């Protein structure tokens, strides 16, 4: 169920008008280049693919890509402007990603350090059948490698299955799968989490209250994630479900298997995104051919994009996109004078199919959003949570992994700005994280402990 959920999480290339996450709408938006919107929109959406662990990098660069490719078509005059825009927004986008990643990690680390349940060994997932309780080191290593192979192959199979489903346009199936998995996350796992937190702090809560709380939490979550909702609430829910998923992984993956899986997932991510026959790349290309905007319901998006001002000629083609304007409208409501923008949008709605209308809002001043797949959140948090769960209880290790992951993310974004194509967000961060985890735990910890015992400062 876990992997099932993961993969379903990753794939929602559904073109369903109901799944209007604002991120979906926003992308096709680098507004001042209307002509190429269609293909670029597809490209941008695709870049938002999320795969368990093989998430694409944020789409500010997808946006940057999109607009950049559009620009190149027009000539290099606009290219510099775009580069500047990308970079001008570059630092801001990095921070827009730092904050949610940090929040997710804080939730995971706080839970790990306080709630005993997530560090107790209570069995393993079906995807990691080999136990690590063997006496010899070699046997243990072998078991963890076998576990990793099984887990990664399950993920690969699921991804390929999803690509096939997408190719044959089984959107309803994918959508249903996705709803089922987020139902489970939002209700079952939250219930378990709440139970364990209450147990830890020895707080009693009666069932009617629990039902009320969980029902409200879950229902609002489903609406926010799959339909419409205030941007920040949606972001908060996505962070929470990523944290819950990460906690489940931390609990159920055996020690060594977890580390090997983290390494293997980053390699897989690298291959799936960059190799020509990688499943994710094929997904991207298929969506591009079809010119479909992908509506991933499980991609974290941080800002809104305003292009409501410029209706695009191809919106008629995207009939179901009526709903997308709703979402954009909601976002606007949250971020600017509501009534004003409402009326603007209403005006632009009707003439949408016919011709572009420039509203009096400044379409030039668009704020590009940043999007990061939830798989990235999950695996970053797994790494930091595992570092926090070490028996020695050392906080330095956790802190070191945290800084390493953030720097990896920063470098990934830099590479993205340089190469201007979809890049996997996992490899660099996870590599740094792994290096720093093992070296801090084994080398720095004894040094700092010795210094602290003599109260020496370096």
């Amino acid at each position, binding site marked *: 169920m876990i992997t099932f959920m993961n993969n379903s999480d990753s794939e929602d290339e559904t073109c369903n008008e109901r799944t209007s996450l604002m991120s979906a709408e926003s992308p096709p938006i680098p507004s001042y280049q209307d002509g190429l919107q269609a293909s670029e929109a597809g490209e941008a959406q695709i870049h938002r693919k999320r795969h368990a662990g093989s998430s694409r990098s944020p789409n500010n660069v997808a946006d940057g890509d999109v607009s950049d490719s559009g620009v190149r078509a027009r000539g290099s005059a606009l290219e510099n402007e775009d580069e500047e825009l990308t970079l001008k927004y570059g630092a801001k986008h990095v921070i827009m990603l730092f904050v949610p990643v940090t929040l997710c990690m804080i939730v995971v680390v706080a839970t790990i350090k306080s709630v005993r349940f997530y560090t107790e060994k209570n069995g393993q997932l079906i995807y990691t059948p080999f136990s690590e309780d063997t006496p010899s080191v070699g046997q243990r290593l072998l078991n963890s490698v076998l576990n990793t192979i099984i887990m990664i192959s399950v993920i690969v199979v699921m991804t390929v299955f999803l690509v096939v489903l997408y190719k044959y346009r089984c959107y309803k199936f994918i959508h249903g799968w996705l709803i089922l998995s987020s139902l489970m996350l939002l209700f079952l796992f939250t219930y378990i989490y709440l139970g364990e937190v209450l147990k830890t702090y020895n707080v009693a809560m009666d069932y009617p209250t629990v039902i009320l709380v969980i029902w409200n939490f879950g229902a609002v979550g489903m609406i926010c994630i799959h339909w419409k909702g205030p941007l920040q609430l949606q972001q908060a829910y996505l962070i929470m479900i990523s944290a819950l998923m990460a906690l489940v992984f931390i609990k159920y993956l055996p020690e060594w298997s977890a580390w090997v899986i983290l390494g293997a997932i980053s390699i897989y991510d690298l291959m799936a995104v960059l190799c020509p026959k990688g499943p994710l790349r094929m997904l991207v290309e298929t969506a591009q051919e079809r010119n479909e905007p992908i509506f991933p319901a499980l991609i974290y998006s941080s800002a809104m994009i305003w292009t409501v001002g410029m209706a695009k000629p191809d919106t008629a083609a995207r009939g179901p996109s009526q709903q997308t304007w709703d979402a954009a409208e909601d976002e606007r409501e949250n971020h600017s004078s509501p009534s004003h923008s409402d009326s603007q949008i209403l005006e632009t709605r009707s003439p949408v199919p016919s011709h572009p209308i420039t509203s009096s809002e400044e379409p030039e001043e668009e704020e590009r959003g940043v999007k990061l797949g939830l798989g990235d959140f999950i695996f970053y948090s797994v790494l930091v949570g595992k570092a926090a769960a070490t028996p020695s209880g050392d906080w330095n290790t956790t802190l070191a992994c945290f800084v390493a992951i953030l720097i990896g993310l920063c470098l990934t974004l830099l590479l993205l700005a340089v190469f201007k194509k979809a890049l996997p967000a996992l490899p660099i961060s996870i590599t740094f994280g792994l290096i720093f985890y093992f070296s801090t735990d084994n*080398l720095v910890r004894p040094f700092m402990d010795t210094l602290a015992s003599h109260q020496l*400062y370096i």
Partner: protein
Amino acid sequence: MTLAVFFGCTFIAFGPALSLFLFTIARDPLRIIILIAGAFFWLVSLLLSSLIWFIAVKASDPRDEALQRGLLIFGVMFSVLLQEAFRFLYYKLLRKAIEGLVALSEDGCSPISIQQMAYVAGVGFGLMSGAFSMINLLADALGPGTVGIHGDSQLYFLTSAFMTMVLIFLHTFWGILFFHGCENRRWWEIAAVVLMHLAVSGSTFWNPLYVGSLVPSYLLMAAAAVWAYLLSGGSAQNLRRFLLCSQSGASPQLAS
């Protein structure tokens, strides 16, 4: 050891740094990135120096107390030198970054100056250094126990907090001094920073005789503060104007 000790020590150690962060760094994304990159560079320097120390310890006899102590002293000094070396490397990186930022900006000047970068880099180094020294202590302070029950000093947490605070400040000032020295090719400034760092770390060998470590460190901090202030364009006149809130055209000190 209770919440009171925990919060007290946390705010003593990290309060000033946190306010520096909130008021000067948190608003600007570029500065936050420079801060975290600075923290990363410090971390790498610590990693390498721990590696050296670890190898040395493993290669030596664990029962020889004097040797172990000697190795520890060597480890500390080597770590200080490595930290300064990484500060230099970070300076080089930031120089390149400024050139990149200038090339990509609209009006040909970088959104952030090397002096601001120096300050932020110093805070980054300081925060990471302080965090690594203090966080485990704070976590232990939350739990049960009695400080100094075996005859050690009872002021352990408090003095650690004060030492951490002074070290964070020192790193900030050293950042400014160091970068200024590198910019203007004044090697004696760089040498002064290295010597000060060695002196402060060396003075901690006096612990638990805290008067031997805290007092010199605070004096050095005051000296470094004045020096950094003068290098950053401050002067006695500016200070007087600031303190008296006198109008000199625009009053920048009042406008946030």
